[in-house]
């Protein structure tokens, strides 16, 4: 396969040069925020560190973390390290309660993030001949706009479709010959099922080649399912508004983990309990420092996303570090009968079982009862109840093995569980303890 790079000098940089570059940028960044952002100065002083204490890259561990809570100090402009007149863009990221996080970007920031996207798109095999249907939400959310700018920088034709209205999405794909789509995985599954129901043939009625799916965690099985349904390649992409949106982590054709552009981010993985670095390859919370950000840089930001490093060199030639797909949000975790469980564990089991459709729901109720509602696959049903009973038993047993808790499994008709066109709501906690 031909290897193409958007910015080969940076993408293929040697590890030593990359570390030197990161050190230089980090040093400058720490000096800048210490001088210009009172909140950072206060935090550094409380931790007893000064920018001059950074002698090597590893010394970063002595500097304090930035958490979601810090974003609300002197809200909304408190963490700006440039005057407001240099800011050209606001994005927000909604929390579950209260005010949204407010993130600001300078003109340089907007273009720098666009370059990361352009690099990532080229990495996936896309060129300026491709047509991208951007079905993320346009607006305060970073997902759509940031991808939009990056795809334009590469020279793709961008269809700013936005999410929802599945009939229109499919119509756009057919009319304009969309080759790439950008959406959430749960919506992609839904769109794929509608395409199947309509009897449209991928490759004949549709020209889709690639999907960039992100904004919510999903499993390898879900990826395969979407790839099979639409006869496309699915690339996992990861981002968060605090770090500029999509383009933070992106898969290359090896599809073994997501590269994080290390000239733009300093990447750490720490134990979510105590903040100490985990051993190489161990699961922990992703911590990012935005090395290039001009308007509102964040130092050691706790993403709450769980992942681990993939340590082997990548066959694509890029030297930038890889992380595993996001295994869960530290906040998604729920506890049943004393066991920590992530929805992704349930999903991984279900997607590996024949006879199960794409939707499921976890309901917690009563005294720590866990009910898993599973849609059966329409084609799996052969009219016999015995087969359904066996399926139910298989699901129950495989879930018990995976999570150490025996759930009550309920089989439901395909298409009856809610499909959210956006972040999927999988867990409903009705427990009153």
């Amino acid at each position, binding site marked *: 396969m031909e290897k193409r790079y958007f910015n080969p000098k940076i993408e293929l940089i040697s590890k030593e040069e990359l570390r030197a570059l990161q050190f230089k940028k980090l040093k400058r960044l720490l000096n800048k925020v210490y001088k210009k952002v009172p909140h950072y100065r206060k935090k550094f002083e409380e931790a007893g560190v000064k920018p001059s204490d950074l002698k090597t890259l590893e010394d970063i561990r002595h500097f304090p973390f930035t958490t979601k809570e810090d974003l609300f100090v002197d809200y909304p402009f408190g963490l700006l390290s440039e005057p407001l007149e240099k800011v050209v863009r606001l994005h927000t990221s909604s929390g579950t309660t209260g005010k949204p996080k407010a993130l600001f970007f300078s003109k340089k920031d907007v273009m720098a993030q666009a370059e990361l996207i352009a690099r990532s798109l080229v990495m996936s095999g896309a060129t300026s001949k491709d047509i991208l249907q951007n079905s993320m939400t346009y607006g305060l959310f970073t997902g759509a706009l940031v991808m939009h700018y990056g795809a334009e920088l590469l020279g793709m034709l961008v269809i700013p479709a936005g999410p929802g209205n599945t009939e229109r999405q499919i119509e756009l794909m057919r009319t304009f010959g969309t080759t790439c789509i950008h959406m959430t995985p749960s919506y992609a599954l839904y769109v794929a099922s509608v395409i199947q129901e309509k009897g449209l043939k991928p490759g004949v009625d549709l020209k889709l080649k690639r999907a960039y799916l992100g904004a919510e965690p999903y499993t390898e099985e879900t990826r395969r399912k979407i790839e099979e349904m639409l006869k496309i390649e699915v690339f996992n992409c990861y981002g968060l508004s605090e770090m500029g949106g999509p383009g933070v982590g992106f898969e290359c054709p090896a599809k073994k983990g997501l590269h994080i552009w290390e000239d733009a981010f300093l990447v750490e993985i720490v134990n979510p309990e105590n903040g100490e670095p985990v051993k190489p390859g161990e699961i922990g919370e992703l911590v990012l420092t935005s090395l290039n950000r001009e308007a509102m840089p964040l130092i050691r930001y706790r993403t709450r996303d769980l992942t681990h490093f993939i340590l082997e060199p990548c066959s694509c030639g890029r030297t930038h570090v890889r992380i595993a797909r996001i295994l869960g949000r530290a906040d998604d975790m729920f506890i049943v009968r004393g066991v920590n469980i992530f929805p992704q564990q349930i999903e991984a089991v279900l997607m590996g079982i024949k006879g199960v459709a794409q939707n499921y729901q976890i309901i917690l109720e009563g005294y720590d009862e866990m009910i898993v509602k599973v849609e*059966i696959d329409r084609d799996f*049903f052969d*009219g016999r*109840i015995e087969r359904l009973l066996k399926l139910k038993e298989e699901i129950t047993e495989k879930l018990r093995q995976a999570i150490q808790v025996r759930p009550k499994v*309920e089989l*439901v*008709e395909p298409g009856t569980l809610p499909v959210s066109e956006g972040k999927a709501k999988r867990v409903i906690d009705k427990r009153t303890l």
Partner: protein
Amino acid sequence: MEAVPVLSIFAENKPGKLEKITEVLASEGINILGFSIISVKDFGVIKFLVDKPEKAYQKFKEKGFTVAKILCLGVELEDRPGGLYEIVKLISSKGINIESALVYVAETRKKAYFVFEVENLEEAWQKLKNEKVNFLKASDFINE
């Protein structure tokens, strides 16, 4: 082989479910000749012998129901005490296990059939085909 098609529909155990299913048949002018309901707590399977099985199957599919066609054997019952007993005894004497069954009354007080589902249709047919019983033929009741 004299096998007859029976429609089987997967249904969650919820109020109004059977109503929705039978509404499809009613609005399409499809006659129900026999039916059975098996329920296991949270879900069940409803089976129908109808006069227009192909049309019913298509309509159920179109309306988003989870439906399958299964082939069953139908044997005529005599309308007298012990009628069902003798048929069931014959079936079990051949080592055939009945998975599910329904009754089709072809002519009130005159002619009825025991329509049953087995795990291995071919094998059951081979064991029963030479018995002195009347098998229900698809052409006896299908009208489409």
